[in-house]
């Protein structure tokens, strides 16, 4: 993927560039907002990572201008302060996701992957199926190998997120945001407890574990071995 990283702090920019490069992405750097805007309009870019505060033109203005110009690539906003204003403003401006600095690189990588896949999934999916697990999103029903499971609403949502990402890592923070709509980090790890309940329901009867834990990062659906 061709990814634009607009970040005025060179350390952070290089850190992101190196990390994403190792994952096989082609990363372009822009040190200020106008450069970033120029690259967005001139180049074919698959995904943009924009710092909220950039010299000359801030991240939100870039998103607004790009959207106004009909450029639809996914945008991830980086903000130094996790302020409510930043969160609301960023999404209203047309960004797809935002991440508060400082962040773990694994978190950024997971979000980049999620954003890259989001497009085709936006068509209304009503049925998800992976390795014998079938989810009917309309009837809110789940079954594994034909056996119906009773999941709590939040367990259902977690499984849905994992299935949608199809083997990609979903981080704890992403689950907190998407399932609970919490943009803060409770000390209690409610995600882990819910995952363990979900896991035990899914694996009932000694079936192989389908949810893989990526230590310190998050979870993913085990891919076909």
């Amino acid at each position, binding site marked *: 993927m061709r990814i634009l990283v607009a970040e005025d702090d060179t350390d952070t920019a290089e850190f992101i560039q190196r990390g994403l490069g190792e994952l096989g992405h082609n990363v372009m750097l822009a040190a200020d907002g106008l450069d970033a805007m120029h690259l967005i309009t001139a180049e074919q870019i698959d995904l943009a990572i924009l710092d909220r505060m950039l010299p000359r033109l801030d991240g939100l203005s870039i998103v607004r201008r790009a959207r106004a110009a009909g450029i639809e690539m996914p945008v991830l906003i980086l903000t130094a302060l996790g*302020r409510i204003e930043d969160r609301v403003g960023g999404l209203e401006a047309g960004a797809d996701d935002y991440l508060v600095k*400082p962040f773990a690189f694994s978190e950024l990588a997971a979000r980049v992957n999620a954003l890259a896949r989001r497009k085709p999934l936006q068509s209304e999916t009503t049925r998800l199926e992976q390795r014998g697990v079938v989810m009917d999103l309309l009837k809110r029903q789940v079954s594994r190998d034909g056996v119906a499971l009773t999941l709590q609403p939040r367990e259902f949502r977690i499984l849905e997120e994992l299935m949608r990402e199809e083997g990609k890592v979903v981080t704890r923070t992403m689950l907190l945001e998407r399932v609970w709509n919490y943009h*803060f980090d409770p000390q209690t790890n409610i995600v882990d*407890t819910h995952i363990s309940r979900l896991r035990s329901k899914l694996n009932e009867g000694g079936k192989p574990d389908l949810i893989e834990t990526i230590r310190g990062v998050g979870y993913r659906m085990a891919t076909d071995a």
Partner: protein
Amino acid sequence: MRKWRSSAAYKIAFLNFGAYAAGLAVLGVIVFVVMHIAFTRQLDSMVSDEAQTLVDEYHSGGDGELAEAIIVREASSSPTHMMYGVYAPDGRRIHGSFPAARPSLGLQQIAFRDDSEGPDKARARVVDLSPGERLVVAVDSDWLETIERIIIIIFSIAFIGACLLGFAGSVFLGSYLRRRLYSISHSAQAIIGGDIRKRMPVGPHRDEFDELAATLNRMLDRIEGLLENLRQVSSDIAHDLRTPLARLRNRLERGASGDASAAVEEAISQVDDVLSLFAAILRIAEVEAGETRRFFRIVDLSALATELAESFAPSVEEQKRTLLWSVEPGISVTGDRELLAQAFVNLLENAQRHTPEGSVIRLTLVVAGRSACLSVRDNGPGVPTGDLPRITKRFARVESNRGTPGYGLGLSLADAVAKLHKGRLTLRNEKPGFSATVELPRNPDSSVEGRTRGN
């Protein structure tokens, strides 16, 4: 002392005084003019009547009778001393003794020469008796002038007296205003000078000045509170950051000489702690600034509380404590869902952290009048009574809890969030146990459809 010219107090007082004096002067002039016109009219009607009488006399008795009447009148000594004259067309005076030349017709002011006083003025009525004879009846306007002179003198004295009084009043008013204002500015100077506890003197009058002083004092209290808070926070941050940073340093030092990868991993988690501490501090500051109110929406508090309880019950259970909840359906408030959730989570985590295993934590949401009350109550050991008032302060921790994790920011955030929503956080020792209650002004019943979930 400031110059009078630059003093607003004196300016106001003297402006007031000037307006008053000008009003008085205008009034005087109007009275004088009206009076002058009235007196002149009276004189005019006197001479006109007299002239008419003589004309009648002339028409009934002829020239002889007229001459006689004039002689009789001039001889009598009436108080209003009238003068008469009948003139031939060539200007010669035929009868009477009016000492002036032949005048033109009509009502008028005539200058004549008085034997005793010299040049003088009179109001006169001049009519033609026949083509040959012209009658003048005049009255000396001396007394009118006298009256007018007296009035002017009296009025001037009164005016000067009033002005002196007004001036004195203005000086008094000006100095009074200045004194009241000066006491406020004097206190402000003292505060600028560093005496931050100094307050404006509030008098017993309950007037605008006292009100202003009281308002300023409230403002100063608030500012002082904020300053105190700031001072406290900066020293606490400095203090509370030293511990994790020192620990971090030790880890890294150990890593440099031994198992690097394990030390780095530990160091990262240490740094994450520090970062989350900062996030909490910043969040509290953001909430206290109150700017986020513009993102307020209607929040279904019943749904939020149920969802929280359901989400946290499993992990509470894992910690060998029990979470029970009872949530009244259909309660909504206007606010920020995320902040409310964070505040309630903090209360839950607080209860979980400070109770022994086997404790029961109860979360209840009920309507109390116009408020929604969410309370988290446990049956643990409670909090030493002396510590109750201060545990919502940032970094405040109960001494015996120094060993448990946390930075003492949880209740502080909950308190700030409650205040942001125009509610409050109340902490109470329940003997046994401890309860934290957030009271929030709730929306009228109809705004959210009743929804029931949970146990």
